[in-house]
Every structure is written in C-alpha cells, then in structure tokens.
C-alpha cells in the first residue's frame, strides 16, 4: 500500500509540474469531498470495533498509558524541533500530531495550512513509520513492549500491528489496538485544532 501511495504522489507531482495549474480551485473541492468520505468510512471502521470499547471498560486507565505517553512524548519532540530548527511551534506540533498516519495528516495540513507544511507532514510521518518498522523489534526486546507500541502511533492498530505482535507476547495486542484506535480518532481533531491556534 505504501508503494501505491508513493507512486500516486509521484504521478501527481509530475503531472502538476508539467501541466501547470489549470485545475486550481477545483483541487480544494476534490480534497474536501474525498476527505469527508474517507473520514466517515474510517469512523465506521472504528465504531464497528466493539471489542476495543469493551477492552477499555475491562482494563480501564492502564490502556491509556501508551496513547497519553505518545501524545506527550511527541509534543516534547516537536517543541525540541521548533527550538532547534527555529520553526513555529504550531507547525511542528501539527506535523507531529499525525502520529504516523501520513496520508491523512499530509492532506489535512496541505489543505488547511500550506502545501509546503503538508509535504513536511507527509514525509515526517512516513519516516516515523519506517523508524517504527525498524526499531520495534529492538525496542521491544531491550526497552519494553509499551514503548514499542508508542513509536507506532496511530498505525499500531493496522499497518504495524503484525510487527508489534511478532516481537512481543500476544497479550500486548489490546494495548496496541486501543492505542492505535485512540490516536487515529485524535488525528483529524488535533491537527485542525492546532492549526487554528
């Protein structure tokens, strides 16, 4: 899937580069329309997962250590970035709030803020997923399972779930899933809120 997305991005960039901007204005409507359908459809997926809601009831607050830690840790990393690169804090926080969901955060930021920051978000969250893919086996062994789940961010519920399960005992699946669902729900809320600050 990642390959499909990256090749679509490249096709888009090339056609935009060579065709110029005759579609300008229309793209905004296309993006809004597709995002609405996509978010509705993702919402259906999230809502249909009743097991995760039941798990939250049974296991309580312990399950939220991972997503809350991920949010705080990501925020700290973004504050550090804005200090090091002298980047507006709002911008780095908005990029970080993608939690690895690169397709959505890139598109959201490109539409609501600037195409340039959207590109940063896309790349940054792709890199987060690659770091997660490489480091989860190592972190699971040397540091801990919950830390490894945090790295995966929103993708802990789908793309990276198999990697997490393979490097840990099966009982961490609940943690991974709930953290992924919670962060996935937060991305379309946090990103626009941060951008409107």
């Amino acid at each position, binding site marked *: 899937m990642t390959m499909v997305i990256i090749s679509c991005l490249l096709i888009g960039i090339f056609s935009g580069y060579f065709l110029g901007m005759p579609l300008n204005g229309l793209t905004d409507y296309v993006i809004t329309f597709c995002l609405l359908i996509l978010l509705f459809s993702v919402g259906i997926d999230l809502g249909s997962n009743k097991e995760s809601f039941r798990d939250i009831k049974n296991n309580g607050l312990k399950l939220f250590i991972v997503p809350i830690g991920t949010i705080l840790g990501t925020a700290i990393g973004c504050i550090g970035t804005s200090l090091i690169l002298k980047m507006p804090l709002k911008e780095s926080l908005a990029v970080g709030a993608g939690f690895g969901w690169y397709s959505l955060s890139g598109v959201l930021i490109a539409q609501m803020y600037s195409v340039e920051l959207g*590109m940063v978000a896309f790349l940054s969250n792709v890199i987060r997923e690659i770091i997660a893919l490489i480091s989860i086996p190592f972190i699971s062994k040397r540091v801990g399972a919950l830390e490894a789940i945090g790295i995966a961010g929103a993708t802990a519920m789908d793309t990276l779930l198999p990697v997490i399960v393979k490097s840990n005992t099966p009982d961490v699946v609940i943690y991974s899933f709930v953290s992924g669902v919670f962060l996935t729900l937060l991305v379309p809320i946090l990103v626009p809120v941060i951008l409107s600050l």
Partner: protein
Amino acid sequence: MNILKFISHNSMYFYIAFMLFGALVGYHEKVPVSIKRHNAKLQTLCLIVLILTIGFEIGSNGEVLLALRAIGLKAAVISLLSVLGTVLCINITIGVFSKKGMKNS
C-alpha cells in the same frame, strides 16, 4: 457550488463531525451491508484520489519543489525527536505507575 464552498471553508468542523458520525453509525450497526462490504475499497479509492490531487498541488507549486531540502530536514528531525520523546515518556510513566503499585500492595 456554494454548499461546497461553505464546507471547504469550515472543513475542520465537518471532518470531525463526519468521523464521529461514522463511528456512531458503525457502533450501532446501522451501516448498509453494501457500504460495509466495500468500506476498505472506498478508503483506498479516496486515498488514491487525495494523494494524486495533493501531488498535483505540490508539483504545480514551484516553491515547494525548491524547498525540498529544508522540508526533508524538518520532517526527519520532527519524526526522530517525536519517537525519542514517546519512548522516554512511556518509560517514565510506567516507572511511576509501578512504584505506586508497589506502595499500594
């Protein structure tokens, strides 16, 4: 076109509302079978159109192409520091919780 304009100018509220509405519908199992069966395909299709469109905007925007190096640097630093921060935060929280747990027991 006016409705579309209104929606895309206030898109943030509509995005949040649509996802929560979807979650509600999904939770109460009110989703038509035809949509539920093709949900994954629908997501892929939307994603492809979105990425193509964003790619088009990037390609036709000369400034972004010129700023690619700066963009790459920002992206790399944000993701690296975020991952580090996340590992540290969760690690510290677990430490605090397990100490509390010991005191209680």
